[in-house]
């Protein structure tokens, strides 16, 4: 009874969560279509003065050190690439969620954003080892959004992190998803999926959010994408960019081997590349 009341409260919190701006929704919709091009992205940005201003600030920031100032949307988007545009739009639209301290996980302010950004960059880099064609930019977007459910669920976990960690350590709980289920009746993946539906995110991103810890359960058409985000998530946690008490408390789904040629050396190179990009991207977004 108490848990079902808890579930109702969580679902209400999802309905009351901040909405994505219309242009951010449009951007996520358009960039999830396989045949879109950069002109589609530029057209959307041009109709959004706040996003335009933010992109111009990013492209002219010290992180990118361009020789001459960039003053046009076309050049800014071409220079930064789709991933930075989507990242800036999401950061503007729902920074309140990304920056929330994750008290239910003993995570501090900005840790969710840092983890999501690291995961996004890692997922994008892992796509390079894909055995088939896969959108690196969509993997980036999936990485940014994969853990958004924690921003909501954290408030309902209260002081459960020590019990959760102990339960996993003594084998009573299989992973942190099981701990969340036990404490709140829903996992962060399920909560994120509900939020994704509320936001009317593209189906591929909804699957990423729901299945990022169990990519083998995703539909075949998006499975490789979900695996890329799953691996990006694990790489972020290994690199010390976690979200608190649940860091490294999830299992690896080895089904990734069917989709990616990821050797130990390739993974080490992913880590080097992402850590360099992360420093730059964090400075450019200047969110946390």
């Amino acid at each position, binding site marked *: 009874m108490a848990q079902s009341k808890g579930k109702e409260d969580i679902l209400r919190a999802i309905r009351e969560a901040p909405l994505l701006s219309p242009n951010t929704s449009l951007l996520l919709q358009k960039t999830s279509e396989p045949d879109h091009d950069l002109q589609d992205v530029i057209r959307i940005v041009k109709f959004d003065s706040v996003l335009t201003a933010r992109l111009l600030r990013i492209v002219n920031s010290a992180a990118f050190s361009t020789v001459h100032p960039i003053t046009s949307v076309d050049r800014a988007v071409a220079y930064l690439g789709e991933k930075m545009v989507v990242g800036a739009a999401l950061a503007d639209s729902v920074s309140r969620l990304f920056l929330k301290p994750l008290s239910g*996980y*003993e*995570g501090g302010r900005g840790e969710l954003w840092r983890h999501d950004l690291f995961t996004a960059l890692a997922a994008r880099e892992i796509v390079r080892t894909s055995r088939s064609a896969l959108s690196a930019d969509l993997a980036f977007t999936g990485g940014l959004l994969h853990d958004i459910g924690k921003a909501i669920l954290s408030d309902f976990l209260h002081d459960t*992190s*020590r019990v*959760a*960690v102990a339960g996993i350590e003594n084998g009573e709980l299989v*992973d942190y998803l099981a701990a969340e289920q036990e404490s709140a009746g829903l996992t962060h993946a399920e909560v994120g999926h509900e939020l994704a539906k509320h936001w009317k995110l593209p189906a591929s991103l909804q699957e990423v959010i729901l299945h990022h810890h169990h990519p083998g359960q995703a539909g075949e058409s998006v499975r490789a994408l979900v695996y890329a985000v799953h691996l990006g998530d*694990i790489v972020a*946690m*290994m*690199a*010390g*960019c*976690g979200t*608190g*008490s*649940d*860091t*490294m*408390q*999830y*299992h*690896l789904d*080895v089904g990734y081997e069917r989709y990616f040629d*990821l*050797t*130990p*050396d390739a*993974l*080490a*190179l992913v*880590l*080097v590349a992402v*850590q360099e990009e992360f420093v730059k991207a964090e400075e450019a977004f200047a969110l946390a």
Partner: protein
Amino acid sequence: MSDLILGVGDFAATRTAGIQVKTFALGSCVAVMLLDPATRTVGMVHVALPDSAINAQKSREKPGYFADTGIPALLNIMAGYGCTGNGRGMIVKLAGGASIMDDNETFNIGKRNQAAIKNILRAQGLEVVAEDLGENYSRTVSISVDTGQVTIFCPGRGQWHI
């Protein structure tokens, strides 16, 4: 006086009394900490990967990133504080090197870091006096310049010392 905070691949040494040398959320990375009782110098390097052969340019830009370039780089700056360049007589403490929950050859960077660091220390004739390595949790680590005590913190697990 502010604590000395190290990021991934950073290394530093100090003998400023009253401060801590600290690094956040090690994950699979390992903090190698050296204490020289003779000069009261403390050094730390935050090692991310075992072997610099994977990216020679990175090892030139950030030698602390790799075990095989990071430990010599740390010894070298400690020599600037009057310590012996080969580390003899130093106290060594290690923390970090966590693994994911599953045994997987590709993802066991934490174990490879531990092995590489211990091999290098052994070849250097340095003995580890205290360590908190492995398992599957990320650690924030600090070492007191005054006492040499290492404090380890992990969300959901609390704080302990080695």
